């Protein structure tokens, strides 16, 4: 089941990033790196979290470097020279979590009613990011415009 969710998550991430943010993504799969560990190569990330409840329950976590979040915000809002504000970047990461989570679970199972919480985003350092528990979690790491982005899903009920 986790494999199916992971495949669908990769497709949904590409769809959301490319359709709404004009940002192509390249997925990193395995290649000797521990995908469940936090990314430490960037000093500051925006970490968005959204809870889901339906056939499966848990939390989806998206970690985006602050610089990338601001670039994506500018793309999203059609800003040119003007740079995006911190609060706009937070708003965009919230919306990314909402779109990825909503699309992922409704595409996995349209019959189930999935209840999503209101997303919350905060700034964290690479070192402060929590690792997921690998037994009940999945992690996808990908590159967008040369920046590393991580999607983690921690299940609280069996998937």
């Amino acid at each position, binding site marked *: 089941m986790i494999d199916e969710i992971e495949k669908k998550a990769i497709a949904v991430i590409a769809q959301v990033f490319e359709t709404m943010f004009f940002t192509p993504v390249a997925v990193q799969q395995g290649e000797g790196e521990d995908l469940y560990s936090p990314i430490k190569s960037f000093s500051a990330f925006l970490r968005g979290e959204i809870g889901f409840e339906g056939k499966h329950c848990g939390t989806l976590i998206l970690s985006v470097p602050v610089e990338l979040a601001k670039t994506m915000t500018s793309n999203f809002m059609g800003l040119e020279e003007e740079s995006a504000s911190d609060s706009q970047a937070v*708003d965009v990461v919230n919306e990314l979590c909402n779109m990825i989570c*909503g699309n992922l679970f409704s595409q996995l199972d349209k019959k189930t009613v999935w209840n999503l919480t209101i997303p919350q985003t905060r700034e964290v350092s690479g070192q402060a990011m929590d690792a997921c528990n690998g037994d009940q979690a999945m992690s996808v790491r990908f590159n967008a415009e040369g920046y590393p982005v991580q999607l983690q899903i921690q299940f609280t009920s069996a998937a």
Partner: protein
Amino acid sequence: MAYNVLIVDDSQTMRKVIRKTVSISGFEIGDCWEAGNGREALDILHSCWVDLILADLNMPVMNGLEMLRELKKGELHRHIPVILITTEGSEKRLEEAYALGIKGYIQKPFYPETIRDVLTRIMEETRD
């Protein structure tokens, strides 16, 4: 013909993006108001003439379904077409929303052309 539009979404950024996307899609907007949740939307409807409501479902304070229930109770605003713009895709929830009177549904992420086509079709149907 230009339509007065009310955009209801808890994300200020998303409201701006929807407004801009609707504008560039070629759909003519007259006045445009924004609300951060269903409660704020109902307050705006008391004082403004709105032709079309574009609403999210997942919002704090009053979500989209609760707002639809409130709209359905009153004679004054029940005729205003509501289109959902949301990440929701579950059949049951959409059935519930259609039963509460929504005229259409656009799933995020969306293309401007999708917005234009759905809005134009629904406003033509409403005019007929």
